[in-house]
């Protein structure tokens, strides 16, 4: 028996197929979910993939957040369903208030595509258990609206509670406050980050590293052992 992991396709999603491939490479079964369909088809976890859903018009993630599938995702995430938001998925999670803070345009005003060094700050979430806390990894980053902002109170609280899951190292590529690259909710089932682990799962492709694969093996182990 393996785990079924849903990947939502919104209009304008780009990395849905790549995310399905990463899930397959990790040994789990990817299940395509459609934004207009409220039904999650009994998946054990959900990934909201990267892309430009609705063209990132209005604000990145703002329109997708109101799609039918998100009604169910929001409800079930609150009940413990593991949810990972990558890039545009992270933006959707903040717009849906499943994660605190918001995402704004990069401080340098350009799209940025680079291989980014990160530190895994929290290796206890559903999606990071296969990392060591403090582990440094390299993962592709590509975004226009990657600047994480929140008020000082929220930032302090996130840090105090160990909910900053990933931090940028060496270069802060978008002006995110306190170098935050990704965060988790209190329960650790909902995680969002800007960099793209699904693009770092095969040697040869992209930057040629596989530092992103543990995201998908983490969740698989958790679900299979559960």
């Amino acid at each position, binding site marked *: 028996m393996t785990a079924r992991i849903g990947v939502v396709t919104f209009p304008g999603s780009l*990395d849905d197929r790549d995310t399905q491939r990463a899930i397959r490479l990790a040994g789990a079964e990817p299940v395509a979910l459609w934004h207009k369909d409220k039904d999650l088809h009994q998946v054990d976890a959900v990934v909201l993939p990267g*892309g430009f859903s609705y*063209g990132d018009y209005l604000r990145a993630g703002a329109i997708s957040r109101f799609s039918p599938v998100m009604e169910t995702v929001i409800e079930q995430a609150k009940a413990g369903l593991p949810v990972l938001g990558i890039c545009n998925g992270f933006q959707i999670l903040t717009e849906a208030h499943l994660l605190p803070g918001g995402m704004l345009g990069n401080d340098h005003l350009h799209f*940025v595509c680079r291989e980014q060094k990160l530190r895994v700050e929290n290796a206890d979430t559903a999606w990071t258990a296969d990392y060591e806390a403090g582990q440094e990894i390299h993962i592709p980053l590509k975004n226009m609206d990657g600047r994480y902002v929140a008020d000082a109170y929220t930032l302090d609280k996130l840090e105090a509670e160990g909910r900053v899951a990933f931090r940028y190292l060496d270069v802060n590529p978008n002006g995110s406050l306190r170098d935050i690259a990704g965060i988790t909710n209190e329960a650790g089932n909902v995680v969002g980050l800007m960099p793209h682990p699904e693009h770092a799962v095969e040697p040869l492709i*992209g930057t040629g590293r596989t530092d992103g694969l543990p995201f998908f093996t983490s969740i698989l182990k958790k679900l299979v052992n559960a």
Partner: protein
Amino acid sequence: MSRTPLDTVEHAAETPDVELPWAELGLKKDEYERVVEILGRRPTGAELAMYSVMWSEHCSYKSSKVHLRQFGEKAPQSDALLVGIGENAGVVDVGQGYAVTFKVESHNHPSYVEPYQGAATGVGGIVRDIIAMGARPVAVVDPLRFGAADHPDTKRVLPGVVAGIGGYGNCLGLPNIGGEVVFDACYQGNPLVNAGAIGVMRHEDIHLAKASGAGNKVILYGARTGGDGIGGASILASETFDDAKPSKRPAVQVGDPFQEKLLIECTLEAFKEKLVVGIQDLGAAGLSCATSELASNGSGGMRVTLDDVPLRDSTLSPEEILMSESQERMCAVVEPAKVDRFLEICEKWDVIATVIGEVTDGDRLEIFWHGGKIVDVDPRTVAHDGPVYERPYARPEWQDALQADDANKLPRPATAEELKAQVLKLVASPNQASKKWITSQYDHFVQGNTVLAQPEDSGMIRIDEETGLGVAIATDGNGRYAKLDPYTGAQLALAEAYRNVATTGAKPLAVSDCLNFGSPEDPAVMWQFAEAIRGLADGCLQLGTPVTGGNVSLYNQTGEAAIHPTPVVAVLGVIDDVARRTPVAFQEEGQLLYLLGDTREEFGGSAWSQVVHDHLGGLPPKVDLERERLLGEILISASRDGMIDSAHDLSDGGLIQAVVESALLGGKGARLVVPDGLDAFTLLFSESAGRAVVAVPRSEEVRFNDMCGARGLPVTRIGVVDGDSVDVQGEFALSLAELREAHEATIPALLA
């Protein structure tokens, strides 16, 4: 409304003396007379709109056609070519049942007027050409040229163009895997924004732009039609028919990449279910082009009800609807029984789709508006029988003087110190400096199949996850070479792109091009154009790589001053397993560096002559295409047999530029020794064609040398990968840190 009666076909026949504004629409008197002759009456306003846009230079290739024919006449025998020139894009067989389509197009002028949107819609247009062939687009490339790097207007144009290409391509989810950025004062006021795209499909999925099968429905889908990008049609509408209208509509369009992404997905889904008989994208000339091309390439005629076109602006006249270049629209021909399913798929993707007409068994294209017939033409006369000009051409009298001004006679560095200073100056010059500031604004990773992207010699995409089959593409063009000798310049562009593909280990298969020139009405420009095509066609014949399609952009000129003739050539290659791709970066210390090919004193048009002397004169490097082919074979074999770990082709900037790039990318230095028979200056800066530098593991040294020897390729050991500097023994050493600073700081300093 005080609108005069609808200008129907009937009305036109009854009112032969009505004067139409053909001149304002860009038609010549004899062209208008031909329209009248073809129709046997004066055209209606709508017919005139169609003829005028379809017979424009851009759509009819009236000045270039007579020369472009050579690509067909001299086409090499090639089993790989599945669809050749004449369709939206050519299609090449890459094995294992896969076919690849690719093409380059220009969006030069709009990008000068509105850099972001001009460039963005350029990407949008070329991607629709790829979808229209039945393929899923998998990558884009963007050969660009701008005015002088330090000109204030470059600071307006370049960031906008780059943001536009990125904004559109990134949002479509297409990795950008290659291109060029060249600065030269000659492009001031006429930047060149060329965009290329590649798509992949199975052989059986190839689709063509033709409407056949009487009764089949014509479906327009995608964005609503608006008043943008109409240009001349509004003149027709306002001055002839309705004086109350705004007399000018903007010639620039705003792109909606999100809409195009939906268009891609819904089109591919329709292809998958075999719902589409024929398909055409709407680009230049909009519906005029799509309907007349679909109808003329098919077996029957076509009837279209223009009232059914979904509009964004209800005040548009029928002429404007026919000429509108609103983006993100496609036209499909679908059997009646499959129409419902087609519309369902469109609805799934929130794409507006409307049946606007049907294929008839006649041979006329008939278009109706408010119940009246406003177009009744033989579609071939619109789409294919446009005027053809044999424009006069003549070698300009300044050509001899230019060639006589020999760059080989320029003063050379006298001391090692001077040589070193010139090396630093070269790698820091805008044309040779790192383009990371630009390329980091493009997504290279999306789709998860990118094997190589900037700054590799060619971009490479995996197309089959199981077998590792992949394709590579490189685009090149050197306007300086082409100015010195357009025939040779075009062949050098071809040779360089071919070499770039082979350097990464892929086998070059086919060519697309984008020919950017000044005004065809200038005989000197026309001569450059004719020479460039002759050179390219001869070269493709010799290399066995057919030209599968391309684009011509003329009138890139301000007043008397034309741009350098700039043929941009894209070469597509195939690699059976991407695992054996050869990267540019030095991989391991101790590996031996070999220079392949012959180095001669060739400085005409060189980067050195530009950077150090601000000079353009003499002859460009010689071309030896047999040598290029041999070099390519060696590079591919060496990759297949694991004999080399990195390779970099030599082109502008010569050997030193290539070595510095490999060193910086790999974070490993090199010790170079000047071989016997060459001086350091020539070794470092000459731009002789047909060369590459490879890094050979010591264990492969004998085997590699034997292979080159057996096949007769000159090979010279020039050093070793080593340390953290580039050290030319007996001359100078430059630390990687110093080189990196010089190479990477230039562009951000100019643009950020």
